[in-house]
Every structure is written in structure tokens, then in C-alpha cells.
């Protein structure tokens, strides 16, 4: 199986590559259109700021490519937010795979939301073998709103937000599966088995 990890100006993609290595999977970090197109699975990681990430993707036509892919696709963290329609972070139009808004947490408690929080309302083959006692590791200040049509798990911090999203071949997760111990490994394995 060939896994392509999309190379763009996002931080710490190395940890996703290491996670694939631990699962015994050959993953390549690439921004080559042909290589991404022919991969069996595509991972879109992310850590960073929405506006500059979208600008980078557009300049390299990766935005169009992402919208056209047909194989299982997994957006992580900022990768999830960029798959939504719009982000409040620096007023950014995103890729629009999910018709969902990305909002900033209200300043009612500590922001960013940092640490281990559990998944709720799980419903997807991607989450097979997990239940609401599964904890995943979060570090984020912005979140995708819940949409009953696309939200396949939620997490509660100040608000209920979309922990994971699914539409057609597109999957996305706000937490970091590559840093979420056994729960994260389970989700990555399920994704690779799709």
C-alpha cells in the first residue's frame, strides 16, 4: 500500500510519518501531483495557521487536487479545519469539502484546548473498536462546528465540536491520532484498512 502525506507549509509532519512507520506502512511526504493521485491513501496533516496554509495550497494548485481525489483521504488537526468551508482564523476561505464553519473557542476557559479529551457519539467504521472512553490528544484554538450530517464523533470543551468528520472519501480529525497513544493508532489503522 502507498500512503502519500501531503507536503505543504504545515508544522510537525514528521510525527505522522513516524506513526506510519510504527504501523509498518510505507508513507511518502510529497507535493507531487501525480504521486498523490496514484497513492492508495492520502493523509493531510497540519499544524499552523489557516490563511498562510490556504495561500500555499492555492499557489501550488494543491487545493484543486485535494477536491478531485477519490481515494480515502484523512485530514488531521489544521487539515480538518482546512477541509471545512470557512475559518474564523484570519477570515479564511477554506477548501469547502464540508459545509461547516470553523470557529474560535469563546474566552470562557483556557484556550487553546490542550490535553486529552474523550470522543462522544461515535458512529463510523473509522472508529471501530473505540467507544466514548477513548481519549485523544488535542492542541487547538479553533474548532469545526457539529453538523449531524457529517460529524462522526464529537468532543466537548466549552462547546460540542466535531472531533471527526466524514463525507464520501474524506475523513477528518481535530485531535492528533499520531500522538494519541493506542486510541490514535486504532483510528489510523482503521483508516489504512478502509
Amino acid at each position, binding site marked *: 500500500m502507498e500512503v502519500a502525506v501531503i507536503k505543504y507549509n504545515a*508544522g*510537525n509532519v*514528521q*510525527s505522522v510519518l*513516524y*506513526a506510519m*512507520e*510504527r504501523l509498518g506502512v510505507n508513507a511518502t511526504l510529497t507535493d507531487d501531483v501525480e504521486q498523490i493521485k496514484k497513492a492508495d491513501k492520502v493523509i493531510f496533516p497540519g*499544524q*499552523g*495557521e489557516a490563511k498562510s496554509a490556504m495561500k500555499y495550497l492555492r499557489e501550488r494548485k494543491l487545493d484543486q487536487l485535494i477536491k478531485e481525489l477519490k481515494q480515502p483521504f484523512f485530514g488531521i488537526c489544521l487539515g480538518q479545519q482546512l477541509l471545512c468551508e470557512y475559518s474564523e482564523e484570519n477570515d479564511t476561505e477554506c477548501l469547502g469539502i464540508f459545509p461547516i464553519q470553523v470557529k474560535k473557542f469563546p*474566552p470562557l*476557559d*483556557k*484556550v*487553546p*484546548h*490542550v*490535553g*486529552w*479529551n*474523550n470522543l462522544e457519539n461515535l458512529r463510523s467504521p473509522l472508529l471501530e473498536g473505540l467507544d466514548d472512553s477513548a*481519549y485523544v*490528544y*488535542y*492542541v*487547538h*484554538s479553533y474548532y469545526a462546528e457539529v453538523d449531524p450530517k457529517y460529524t462522526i464523533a464529537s468532543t*466537548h*470543551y466549552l462547546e460540542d465540536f466535531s472531533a471527526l468528520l466524514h463525507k464520501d472519501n474524506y475523513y477528518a480529525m481535530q485531535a*492528533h491520532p*499520531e*500522538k*494519541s*497513544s*493506542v486510541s*490514535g*493508532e486504532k483510528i489510523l489503522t482503521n483508516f489504512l484498512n478502509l
Partner: protein
Amino acid sequence: MLTKRIIPCLDIKEGRTVKGVNFVDLRDAGDPVELAKIYSDEGADELVFLDITATVDKRKTLVDLVTRVAKTINIPFTVGGGISTVEDVKVLLNAGADKISINSAAVKRPEVINEMAAEFGSQCIVVAIDTRSVDGVDFVHTHGGRMPTLIKTQGWAKEVAERGAGEILLTSMDHDGTKAGFANDLTSEISSELSIPVIASGGAGNMIHFKDVFTAGKADAALAASIFHFKEIAIPDLKGYLDKEGVSTRV
């Protein structure tokens, strides 16, 4: 529900663990990667690696270590010790560290916090504050707590948060090594005042101390070294105890 984090800290010198560890199931007590793996498997929520050599020529050893740790463990980890520039941060993040921690460099030139946060995002910038009480007033100390400054701890904590720190690692030099409990009053004061998470450090001696720092101390995470290294407290036992006491952790 967002849970409280338990963070073992490993002191590293020239790529090896120091301060001693006493794990029966460890083949090589000096190998940080092996110790990291055990903690990760036992349910530690994060790890901190503090490089106490931290001289420029030893950097390569640290980068190699970070790479080995990142390849091995599946939980987040922070690297600190001698980090002073954006370039230092870039090298460690590229090697696979999730966060970096700065201390003396931030005191010396506070703008470096803004620069690092702008370049890499606040989420990976931890500012470590070593504090000691002098005649009842809390002052920031640098160089591993040896050098006093005239900066008041509470004001400094607020400033680093405003400059873009993502978390604060607050070490009480008055409590560190005493095993008499964390600095709950100061931790609570700072945690209540700030909108970023506070990791409490210094003084852990028993399980009650952890409960206290999460309740009275309002800490978001608690860090300790020797009590974990010498197996005085095992992480699964600590988490079981906290759960019974109504403090939720990831179990």
C-alpha cells in the same frame, strides 16, 4: 471531558538520562528512549526532556535523541534546555519534538517568545518559569534556578502569555526536591489569572500532592521526576487514586 495530565520529566546529559532511575524492567537505565517507552506504555500523558548539558556542540546528540524518541513513542513530548533562537526550535521540531520549552533565553530577551510563536504557533511554545520566594515575594530565577532576577513571577507569567506562550511550566524552587507537595497557592494564583494551561512542577512526594495541585492548585498538568524514576509512585496507581478522588485523568 478534558483531563488533567501527568508528565514525567527526564533529565538528559549528553544523550543519557541522569539523576538516576530505578526501574527493574529496564535493560539500560541511562537510555532515555527506553524509559520514555515505559512511561508511555504505563499511561503518562506527555513527557518532558530537559537537556542539562545544552551546550552548542552537544546539540547534535540531543537532536539524534529527539528523533529516536519521536520514532518510538506515540504521545506528545516537549524538549527544553539551552534553547534560545528560532533556529534552535526549528531543528528540534523538525526532528519530531511536539513542543519546546524556553526559560533563561526568554528572560534575557522576551521578544523571542513572540518570534517563536509567530513562526511555529503558540501551541508548541512552553515557557518554563523557575520561581523562588524572597522575603515573601515570588521572583523569577534563571540558570536552573541559581540566578535571581528582579522580575516578579506573577507579572512575568502574564507577560509570557501575552507574548504568545502556549503553556507555562511553573517550577517552584522552594518546593523542588522537598517532596512536601507542590506550590499550590502560587500555582492557583497564576492558573486563575491566565488563559493558558499551567503545568505545576516541584515538590511531588506522594499521591495526595497530585490531587492537591489539581484541586487547590488549579493546575492543568503536573510534572515530576524522581518519584516516577524510582517507582515510588507508579503512574497507573496514581491515575487510579486520582479517579477515586474525583480528579479525571486519561485512564
